[in-house]
């Protein structure tokens, strides 16, 4: 069951200071409300993965590995390969992460990242079929959160996209009964570049790219994922409060702009 979470005990006074600053249009790290923290992207760190990427978003650190293996399709989609996004909130990343099966937070994070990739048709799942209904390629996107300083969604989505673009795979074919690799390595067919842009509402202000301290005082959260054509491909509201229609419209507009900036950063590195 989902239940109202317990926030870590941040001193009331400190919380008040942060909220007061934001109400006056300032942020504790001196960014403007519409600015991202510095973004650093590296690809190809994990040689045993088909693709990998590390994203530093401020002090948040995410490592994504992509593995492509042969498996079976889902019974209701015999002519599609499988794409699966899994998130581990690794306990070394935060005192609030516990070892064990994925928490609600990890599942929501994985599903929001997954929806961005899936709904923008970034991966052409039809091209992953080896033998219809029997054998397909399975693309595992494993998101490993190593340091949690807020806005894990945007950092995870960027790292996942970069790792997919970075991935090299063998073409598989059927020889008699067995699946064998054709010689050579190819890039995965990545057809779209979804970028998630997350907002936090603190008091009456909408901030882009909330840090952990800001997340601890936000009343609501909104993620808008924008594809390469400037269309929305996924949205997710979180948190204990809500947004007005006007706030949502404004956020969507800003998301289109921020997504374009971040997409350029990701592709510059990942396409190398």
């Amino acid at each position, binding site marked *: *069951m*989902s*239940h*109202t979470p*317990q926030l870590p005990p941040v001193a009331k006074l400190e919380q008040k200071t942060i909220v007061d600053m934001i109400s006056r249009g300032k942020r504790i790290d001196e960014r403007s409300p519409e600015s991202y923290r510095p973004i650093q992207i590296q690809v190809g760190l994990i040689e045993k993965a088909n693709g990998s990427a590390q994203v530093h978003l401020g002090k948040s650190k995410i490592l994504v590995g992509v593995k492509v293996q042969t498996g079976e399709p889902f*019974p*209701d989609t015999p002519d599609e390969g499988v794409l699966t996004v899994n998130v581990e909130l690794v306990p070394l990343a935060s005192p609030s992460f516990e070892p064990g099966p*994925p928490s*609600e937070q990890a*599942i*929501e994070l*994985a*599903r929001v990242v997954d*929806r961005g990739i*899936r*709904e*923008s048709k970034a991966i052409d799942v039809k091209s992953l079929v080896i033998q219809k209904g029997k054998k397909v390629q399975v693309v595992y996107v494993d998101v490993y959160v190593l340091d949690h300083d807020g806005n894990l969604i945007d950092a995870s989505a960027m790292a996942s996209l970069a790792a997919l673009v970075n991935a090299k795979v063998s073409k598989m074919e059927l020889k008699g009964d067995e699946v064998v690799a054709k010689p050579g390595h190819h890039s995965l067919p990545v057809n779209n570049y979804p970028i998630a842009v997350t907002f936090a509402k603190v008091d009456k202000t909408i901030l882009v790219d909330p840090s952990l301290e800001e997340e601890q005082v936000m009343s609501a959260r*909104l993620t808008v994922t924008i*594809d390469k054509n*400037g*269309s*929305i*491909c*996924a*949205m*997710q*509201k*979180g*948190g*204990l*409060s*809500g*947004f*007005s*229609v006007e706030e*949502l*419209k404004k956020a*969507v*507009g800003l998301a*289109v702009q921020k997504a374009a900036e971040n997409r350029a950063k990701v592709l510059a590195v990942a396409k190398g």
Partner: protein
Amino acid sequence: MPEPKQPEKLIDEKGLRIDGRRLDQLRPIKLEVGILDKADGSAYIEQGKNKILAAVYGPREAHPKHIALPERAVIRCRYHMAPFSVDERKSPAPSRREMELSKVIRESLEPVVLTELYPRTMIDLFVEILQSDGGSRCAGITAASLALADAGIPMREIVAACAVGKIEGKLALDLSDAEDKYGEADLPVALVPNSSMITLLQMDGSLTPSEFERGLGMAVEACKAIHSMQREALKKKYHEIKEVVEEKEESEVIA
């Protein structure tokens, strides 16, 4: 039951949908309040072929204790599908989708509940999908809100929810299962009507920003219409109770 086949067209030449609706038309909705005996509050909704029960227990002692909060009630929420509610039998173990929806449904209702009145307690909210037909999370919120009212949980307002989608390039209200499956986008929305606050917002598919704005507008209007039905359902229930009480009083007088 074998899954229905993909329809050839989702909108016919008259602009009507496979179930005969206009693009801006809701499916028939039936609401009932207070239909379970043991729950502190309950409600039932049929919306299209969705059949959904919601029930509330609480405020009651928080369990396990460590989840209790010192200044407010904790809300627990479970969205759950019966194994027979979908075409292919669903395992009763909670799926990742059900876990996510439990969270967003809880978060859509948290803003209206006066949790500060019941510190250290918990309020449990169960949404059981007996049959699913597209838009079950929204119909579940609509019913859950009524169950909270039926349980006498103090709330600022009653939350209503409805999705808008895109089929064959056009915005359409309240997608059915087939429309959701073969359509191009789905945008579920929950609204706190008087304060005009959106407390559930999810989207998947593809919408331009301007489609999003128009779609959001349609969803808000639909939520308002559903909100009127919710108020009717509550009035009817209270009316019935009043009648029962009056009958009882009469009969007691007679006795």
